[in-house]
């Protein structure tokens, strides 16, 4: 058992020092009934090679996104992960460290968090950011709770353009908080009248940008309306790469920005772990959830960093804490931060531009297909098509041919039949020209079969 350093001789000597006759003697406080479980129906220990074979079999039973063309987005984006990033986050001093409670020997993690907070603030156009949350969806829920704390109001409005899973997490999180969560129906044509719904009883309104259909919106008019009524504007960002190219929500007037950092931090990993980004205006600082890292000096006057403002947190405030969050997503925040450093101003901008160009070009080709309509609106690297039929069987048919063509509306909105002909398509730099050709041709063929079938 390679992870256990004690030998039988060590165990005997230690029991002797303790004055116990056996390991079992140490468990005397455990009721006898629970202490001797029957044999588990589980295998005994195995070597690396055996475990690797098991996991290789799990892996083989999947089709990796990179095994062929992949145009899936919907809040999880496949971008290239630099090799140096993946090396650096595996360094034991980062990987195997705890939350930096002992700042003297955790300056590495702490300086990274300070840099991360700065990068998130810069990217979102807001003043302060925390040291990360679990993911974008939970960050969004925390933002709504925070808005209620700040405004002392009890109503939250969610745009229909918000990722339906994020909306569901918000609803769940606030279910017992004496807060009314009003979520608008999904609206691919951008007809929802958010401004008209702003009122003085509202704690916040949550808008995703780009929204779940990929559409970009100018949040400024909404922000003005919110400001007038003392409503906080929460902007949700599922693809932070977009912020390399578009005006950040903070500049458009958002008070809180939450985002999912996965797309710029690491592999898709089947949707988790991600990293929640959370930024806000300075004045809301003491109402923010999550860990915060701050600059200070040490006994010799040298610059250093510590976790700070912990009086907001559960280990001090207990039931009065701003959140119950404890473990967050430090390592993925590190990955995000390293990627920001590698990209820099110029790289982030260019990568965003490349994504946009490839998406625009692909959309241009797809919207020419007979029966296919591109839903109108500005977009970044993801867009929505309206097909002449239910998108799900089309997606399944293309998957059979090795093409992950996009997300069918049914997957996101099973109860909205009118959206079942929607196909969401994300195009990133990881798609090749051949991939894009395959998508266009594959979709044309699949729809041709459909049309052919319909014509019979």
């Amino acid at each position, binding site marked *: 058992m390679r992870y256990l350093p004690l030998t039988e001789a060590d165990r005997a000597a230690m029991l002797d020092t303790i004055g116990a006759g056996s390991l079992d003697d140490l468990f005397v406080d455990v009721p006898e009934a629970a202490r001797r479980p029957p044999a588990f129906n589980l295998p005994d220990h195995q070597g690396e090679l055996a475990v690797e074979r098991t996991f290789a079999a799990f892996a083989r039973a999947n089709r990796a996104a990179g095994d062929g063309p992949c145009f899936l987005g919907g809040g999880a984006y496949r971008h290239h992960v630099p090799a140096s990033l993946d090396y650096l986050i595996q360094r034991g001093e980062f990987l*195997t460290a705890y939350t930096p409670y002992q700042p003297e020997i955790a300056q*590495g993690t702490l300086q990274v968090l300070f840099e991360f907070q700065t990068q998130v603030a810069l990217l979102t156009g807001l003043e302060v950011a925390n040291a990360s949350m679990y993911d974008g969806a939970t960050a969004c829920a925390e933002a709504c709770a925070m808005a209620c704390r700040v405004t002392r109001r009890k109503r939250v409005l969610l745009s229909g353009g918000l990722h339906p899973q994020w909306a569901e997490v918000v609803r769940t999180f606030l279910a017992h908080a004496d807060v009314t969560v009003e979520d608008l129906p999904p609206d691919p044509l951008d007809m929802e009248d958010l401004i008209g719904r702003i009122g003085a009883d509202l704690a916040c309104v949550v808008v995703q940008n780009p929204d779940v259909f990929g559409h970009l919106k100018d949040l400024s008019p909404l922000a003005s309306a919110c400001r007038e009524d003392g409503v906080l504007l929460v902007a949700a960002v599922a693809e932070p790469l977009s912020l390399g190219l578009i005006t950040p929500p903070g500049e458009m007037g958002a008070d809180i920005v939450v985002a999912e950092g996965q797309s710029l931090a690491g592999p898709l990993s*089947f949707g988790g772990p991600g990293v929640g980004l959370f930024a806000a205006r300075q004045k809301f600082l003491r109402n923010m959830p999550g860990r915060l890292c701050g600059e200070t000096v040490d006994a010799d006057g040298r610059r250093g960093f510590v976790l700070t403002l912990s009086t907001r947190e559960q280990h001090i405030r207990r039931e009065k804490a701003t959140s119950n969050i404890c473990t967050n*997503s430090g390592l993925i925040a*590190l990955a995000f931060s390293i990627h920001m450093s590698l990209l820099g101003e110029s790289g982030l901008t260019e990568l965003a531009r490349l994504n946009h160009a490839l998406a625009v070009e692909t959309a241009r080709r797809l919207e020419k297909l007979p029966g296919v309509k591109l839903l109108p609106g500005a977009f970044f690297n993801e867009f929505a098509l309206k097909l002449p039929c239910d998108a799900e069987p089309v997606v399944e048919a293309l998957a059979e041919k090795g093409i992950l063509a996009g997300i069918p509306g049914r997957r996101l909105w099973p109860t909205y039949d009118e959206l079942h002909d929607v196909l969401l398509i994300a195009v990133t730099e990881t798609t090749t020209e051949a991939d894009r050709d395959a998508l266009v041709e594959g979709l044309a063929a699949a729809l041709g079969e459909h049309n052919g079938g319909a014509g019979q």
Partner: protein
Amino acid sequence: LEEPLIFELGRPGARGIDLPEGPEVTPRLGGLERQRPIGLPDLSEPQVVRHYTRLSQKNYGIDSGLFPLGSCTMKHNPRLNERLARLPGLADLHPFQPQGTVQGALALIHTLAGWLTELTGMPAVAMTPAAGAHGELCGLMAIRACLEARGDARQVVLVPESAHGTNPATAALCGYQVESIPGTADGRVDVDALKRMLGPDVAALMITNPNTLGLFERDIIDISQAVHAAGGLVYMDGANLNALIGRVRVGDLGVDAMHINLHKTFSTPHGGGGPGAGPVVLSDTLAPFAPLPYVVKDGEAWRLIEHRHEADGHPFGRMKGYHGQFGVFVRALAYMMSLGADGLAQASGDAVLAANYLLARLKDHLSAPFPGPVMHEALFDDSFLKGTGASTLDFAKGLIDEGYHPMTMYFPLVVHGALLVEPTETESKASLDAFAESCIALADRARNDPESLKQAPLMAPRRRLDETRAARQPVLRWTPPAGD
């Protein structure tokens, strides 16, 4: 060596990434193009690699040495798990791929769920919570959903005074009032007091077991029965599960829900603050209320239940986006399969052995408020420092200069100047002995030369940091120097 902030290292025009030219297109950004620069620094790859390498060298991890942070279970993190989590067939899966293309991933989740239920003897598990506190929330939400389904609007959650802050914080998030249960002189929940507090308004008891003093709640079965008899449910905080796994079946203790920190008990790396994963095992009573999504076996295939209308039970909602911390699942399952049923039982046994060994070696030099046997952590108070002028904090910082990460300090709150030591099962006897000798030497130093301890640490990248200043004048981000 000092390492500047990344913002102080940048040079406009440097590049850390090379990108191809994209096609020439007419933008479709709707006039929302960024008008101002972001403000990020430009750096080359060598600078970036060196920056983070140097920062890492200012950190201490379990790879660096003993990390006896009580209640945190800082055990060895096998690299096999990192290798497996990076297999393209596991890492490079989109959460919205058609289910037919991710059968291996669904099987993996289902397999891990099977290990968790089998080891705990609980019938069901909610896999998606992202961390321990998130798991607590999931468990309490299931409890609340269950009680509400019964039409039972109970308002109170009982929490022992020794509990982690997450317990009351979670209960509050769930809309409950928190009442604190006093402890006994031997460090357990006062069962009589608890029974007196039970009543028609008590929704649940949240009890940490082994508790935060490192002791097993001997009366847990009696307690569970009493809570159930009063119409409440029992949430067990599984933060300290490393003492029990493979040796004690939680299902036999009568509890209804317990979260499992995969990043503690099952060794997925803490990464300086996460990510973790906090699946919650559930009793038959609570199982129907488990949140979405979850995986079921459907003939030969695995199926992901993502939407309410597909569910058999009454899911109370959704904890996070997608399907849980899949990358953490991979690591945890690899760890569990590596140790196996026999190894997990040996591991918890060794963890408990190591804690009792340190207690035995240190109890005459430090002061232990409770006698053993303890479970997987050894608790000391600061009475051994009385009159020396040195504090718990000084003692802990002194350990840094000895080459160790300090233990947990000043927690649990119910013990004065607490020092909570959790060595875990992955330390050798030589390592435990060396640590004990350092502690003994430090205790001597506290008596003979307390002033020197107050200066500690001297050999770390930083001496003690001014936390008051950080909180009073918060500087939470870099800003460009004036004039830039």
